[in-house]
């Protein structure tokens, strides 16, 4: 065998071994790739199925969202119309706010004017207060003067009362002396009646009943006629009302300006003597 042939045989053997190894490895790796590819294809199919499902769901969701979007568009349109309306209202309100601001400024000016007026009035009030204070002081002084005058008046009244009492005592004395001169026994503040009642002589005397009271079943009347009017104890007067005779009045006690007498109705019932009835010294006029 030629040497070249031998060398070729060796090369062929070596290449055969290398080719066998490479082919085995390649086959194994290719099988792995094929199996992996099969798995990937299965995954791709599943993914495609899922994609289809999700696509259909997405389409449904998209249609639903489109409907919602149309609804939202309608809502947006409504809101836009509302917004326009509100903008109009806002404009109106802004105008009103401006008017209110102007009014507020006017009111502030008025308040300022009123403040000035108030200051002026406060000054006037201050002046009036000072005047009132002065008047109060004057009033107080006047009151003190009045108190002094009242004290003096009381003193004068007391003196007057004393003088009146003196005058009264003198008049009683004069009346007693006059009675002694006339020969008639007359005693003031004497006891019960004595003798026959007598009418008052001279010019007629007119008076009025000032009080009526009843003592032990006997009615007594107080009149505004006294000893200065020639009324004496046991004098007989006539009580009338509206020019009508009511009863006789027999004097039982006299004073200077008043007298008390017993009412004599002459046995009649239902006769009532009241305050204000007229007392006459004679009924003949």
């Amino acid at each position, binding site marked *: 065998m*030629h040497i*070249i*042939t031998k060398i070729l045989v060796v*090369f062929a053997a070596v290449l055969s071994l290398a*080719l066998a190894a*490479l082919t085995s*490895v*390649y086959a194994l*790796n290719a099988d*792995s790739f094929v199996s992996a590819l099969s798995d990937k294809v299965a995954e791709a199919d599943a993914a495609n199925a899922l994609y289809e499902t999700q696509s259909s769901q997405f389409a449904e969701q998209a249609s639903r969202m489109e409907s919602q979007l149309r609804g939202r568009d309608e809502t947006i349109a409504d809101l836009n119309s509302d917004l326009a309306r509100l903008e109009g209202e806002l404009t109106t309100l802004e105008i009103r706010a401006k008017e209110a601001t102007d009014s507020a400024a006017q009111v502030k000016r008025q308040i300022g004017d009123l403040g000035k007026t108030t200051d002026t009035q406060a000054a006037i009030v201050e002046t009036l207060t000072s005047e009132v204070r002065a008047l109060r002081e004057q009033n107080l002084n006047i009151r003190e003067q009045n108190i002094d005058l009242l004290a003096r008046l009381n003193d004068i009244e007391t003196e007057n009362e004393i003088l009146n009492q003196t005058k009264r005592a003198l008049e009683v004395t004069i009346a007693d002396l006059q009675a002694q001169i006339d020969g008639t026994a007359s005693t003031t503040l004497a006891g019960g009646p004595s003798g026959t009642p007598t009418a008052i002589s001279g010019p007629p005397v007119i008076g009025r009943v000032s009080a009526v009271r009843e003592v032990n079943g006997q009615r007594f009347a107080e009149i505004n006629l006294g000893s200065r009017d020639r009324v004496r104890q046991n004098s007989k007067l006539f009580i009338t009302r509206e020019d009508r005779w009511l009863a006789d009045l027999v004097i039982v006690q006299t004073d200077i300006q008043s007298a008390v007498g017993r009412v004599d109705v002459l046995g009649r019932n239902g006769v009532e003597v009241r305050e204000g009835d007229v007392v006459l010294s004679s009924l003949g006029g």
Partner: protein
Amino acid sequence: MSQFGMNMPGGRRAKRGGLDVYSGLLCFAVLALGAATALMYIAATKVSPESGNPIALQETGRVQLPR
């Protein structure tokens, strides 16, 4: 006796082998094996997990391309 041009039976010198048609076929086979080995090397390199190592095996259940 061969120096005398005479050959004795069984005494003839062995004929030395030369290139013949079988050597040609063997050469063609070697060339084909070389080409196939080269192509398989390239193909195995493409499916091998390691770059430049055509005889590396892929892990079971996990395929990766040469790095």
